[in-house]
């Protein structure tokens, strides 16, 4: 598929026509001199630096984080497009929650033989400790980040579900703030749906999932692994916007199955913890015994139903690459509906027919390790040498269950400011889906990541990716 399928540009169609949502922006791009855009781009960087400085007391980790490039040209989605996406996202996260509820209780989907047992039981992210342990209100994933890619005017795919501790939402919020400051006129020429209410939505979501024993105004905190964590800046940012305490493990303690926060006025009971600390480190009494970042005894309080952890423990089993390939079945099984959002077609090499197909088409496919991450142990067929393909063929034959394969997708592009001027670059989108007891909340848009290198499909910030503001038009 790579190189042959036409690439869909979100602004300009193949015949040169501008898509209606981009009309104003396209006109504006024609009139604004490139060097003025470059100036604005430098101003944006200065603004980010200044916002960063507000937080710089927290150390180097925060300031290095801020160097992720920001592209000043917004990405635009129509209300219609967003409407479909948001329905699909709601459905998907609902299914993920139902799946987690099930695999930690009745395991009906395993009994039905729809998802192989070993994919769950032998999955490193599955937490046996959560078995038969109810979570408050039955909600496991309150905060999800679903990575979406687009290949044409109508087709969006889910590339990956992030159900553990998805990050990046602070960029979504700051990108908007900076855009309004830099381009107030352009902004006012569009009816852009707001994203500023994200933190209000997050707080409302957290409060809605407080244990039944909590007061009507539950105490929420944000638990961070500390300033050496790469997302520490975001933790400080969110705690500040939420108006909740930012705590580390040592600021909390458990007594008689209740979690307290140490304050100058004495211990204060904590009801909901937005934790950005991985499962492994949460409680040295339950998981890694050498964790100094967690709260000893917190799992006991959690099992007693006296505190809510957002997200719940053990949610990672739902966002694994192998389980991902079963998402269409998962949606149908729990909701009895057809999935609104498509999965990237995924070949499970554990199935003999699929393996045969993959081995015959290695040069055209992307092959990924089931439990691998960060691009490690991955084969990009169209870009690989013959020798690399043969090495991978051996690996696949040896351990078919360890791999999945997908076609290489022609990701959509958006106009982006690069050294040579304005040019199309590949993008993805991470919307944030908040699930509360009362309802699902999704602020329109999300974080658009852009691959700044020409032809590159890699949007990760670690590999030269940048971000953009995402405008969902209100009408």
């Amino acid at each position, binding site marked *: 598929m790579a190189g042959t399928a036409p690439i869909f540009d979100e602004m300009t169609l193949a015949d040169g026509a501008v898509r209606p949502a981009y009309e104003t922006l396209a006109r504006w791009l024609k009139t604004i001199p490139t060097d003025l855009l470059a100036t604005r781009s430098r101003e944006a960087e200065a603004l980010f630096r200044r916002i960063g400085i507000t937080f710089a007391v927290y150390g180097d980790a925060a300031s290095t984080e801020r160097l992720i490039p920001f592209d000043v040209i917004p990405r635009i989605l129509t209300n219609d497009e967003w409407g479909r996406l948001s329905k699909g996202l709601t459905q998907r996260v609902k299914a993920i929650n139902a799946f987690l509820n099930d695999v930690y209780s009745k395991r009906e989907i395993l009994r039905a033989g729809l998802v192989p047992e070993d994919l769950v039981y032998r999955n490193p992210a599955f937490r046996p400790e959560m078995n038969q342990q109810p979570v408050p209100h039955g909600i496991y994933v309150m905060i999800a980040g679903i990575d979406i890619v687009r290949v044409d005017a109508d087709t969006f795919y889910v590339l990956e579900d992030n159900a553990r501790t998805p990050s990046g939402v602070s960029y979504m919020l700051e990108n908007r703030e900076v855009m309004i400051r830099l381009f107030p006129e352009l902004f006012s020429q569009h009816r852009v749906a707001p994203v500023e209410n994200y933190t209000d939505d997050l707080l409302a979501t957290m409060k809605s999932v407080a244990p039944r024993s909590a007061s009507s105004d539950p105490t929420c905190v944000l638990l961070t692994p500390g300033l050496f964590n790469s997302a520490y800046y975001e933790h400080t940012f969110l705690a500040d916007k939420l108006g909740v305490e930012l705590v580390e493990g040592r600021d909390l303690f458990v*007594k*008689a199955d209740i979690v307290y926060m140490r304050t100058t006025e004495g211990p204060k009971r904590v009801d909901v913890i937005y934790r950005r600390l991985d499962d492994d480190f949460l409680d040295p009494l339950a998981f890694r015994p050498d964790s100094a970042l967690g709260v000893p005894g917190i799992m006991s309080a959690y099992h007693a139903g006296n505190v809510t952890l957002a997200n719940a423990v053990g949610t990672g089993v739902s966002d694994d690459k192998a389980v991902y390939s079963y998402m269409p079945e998962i949606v149908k099984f729990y909701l009895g509906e057809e999935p609104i959002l498509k999965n990237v077609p995924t070949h499970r090499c554990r199935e003999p027919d699929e393996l045969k197909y993959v081995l015959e088409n290695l040069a055209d496919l992307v092959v990924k390790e089931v439990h691998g991450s960060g691009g490690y142990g991955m084969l990009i067929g169209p870009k690989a040498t013959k020798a690399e393909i043969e090495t991978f063929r051996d690996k696949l034959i040896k351990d078919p269950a360890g791999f999945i394969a997908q076609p290489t997708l022609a990701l959509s592009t958006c106009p982006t400011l690069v050294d040579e001027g304005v040019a199309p670059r590949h993008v993805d989108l991470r919307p944030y889906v908040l699930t509360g007891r009362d309802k699902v909340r999704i602020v329109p848009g999300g974080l658009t990541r852009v691959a700044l290198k020409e032809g590159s499909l890699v949007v990760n910030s670690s590999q030269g990716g940048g971000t953009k503001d995402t405008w969902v038009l209100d009408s």
Partner: protein
Amino acid sequence: MRIRIAHETLYTYAVPANAVIQTLRLTPRNFSGQHVANWRLDVDQDCRLDAHEDAFGNITHTFSASGPIQSMTIRVDGLIETSDTAGVVRGAIERFPPGLYLRETDLTKADAEIRAYAEARRAKAGNGTLSILHALLDDLPAGMAYDKDPTHASTTATEAFALKSGVCQDFAHIFIAAARHLGIPARYVGGYFLHADGTIDQEAGHAWAEAYVEDLGWVGFDPANAICPAEQHIRIACGLDYLNAAPVRGSRHGGDGEFLTVKVRVDQAARQVQVQ
């Protein structure tokens, strides 16, 4: 057989501890081979013991005590009636299907050495899960020295197997790693053991393994003693490895210079006289 257990764990601190929190897995449950006649768990601190059942069906007690704590004692006293089931564990609380117990953990990872060892035992044993497990059980102690010095609570199966020595916990981890590598579900069991030689006072509890055999169910294997549990084993807790079944997992604030004394007495109880 009636077995009396007295297990005392004494902590003393050079600098008093400000706070201590612990999760205890020190309470047995009944199954076909064991009936709990009497059991008492006590912590000599002003605290509440919050009982839960964990994900594996073990009974846990979590307590938190505030300092200054100079010393602390956890005491267990109990009387258990056991019967010989030839190692077969029936009527125990099962919260997972056997498939879960193929899961690899840090403590039970099988490296190339353990894998080769397991495969060689299987080749020798021939067909049948039970004969493979017995081959592992018979052979493992021969190649391993029982020595409590070189290993500790967080020693992995791989490390102990490389050292060729360890304690019951290490033997159990190696057995589990080997069995799982061969596709046989296996799990860790913590408890007590009544020595046949009349030794009553011990320095610690005991640990062994259980493996799943089609048609039989879970069967106990005690590789440190090269036997299947009969009447002398008291089963307290089980899980994927030591960490799921540890008698005590705790954390403290302050309390530098911790000194730990463990006394375990496992003794055959005198036959009770029935009084009319």
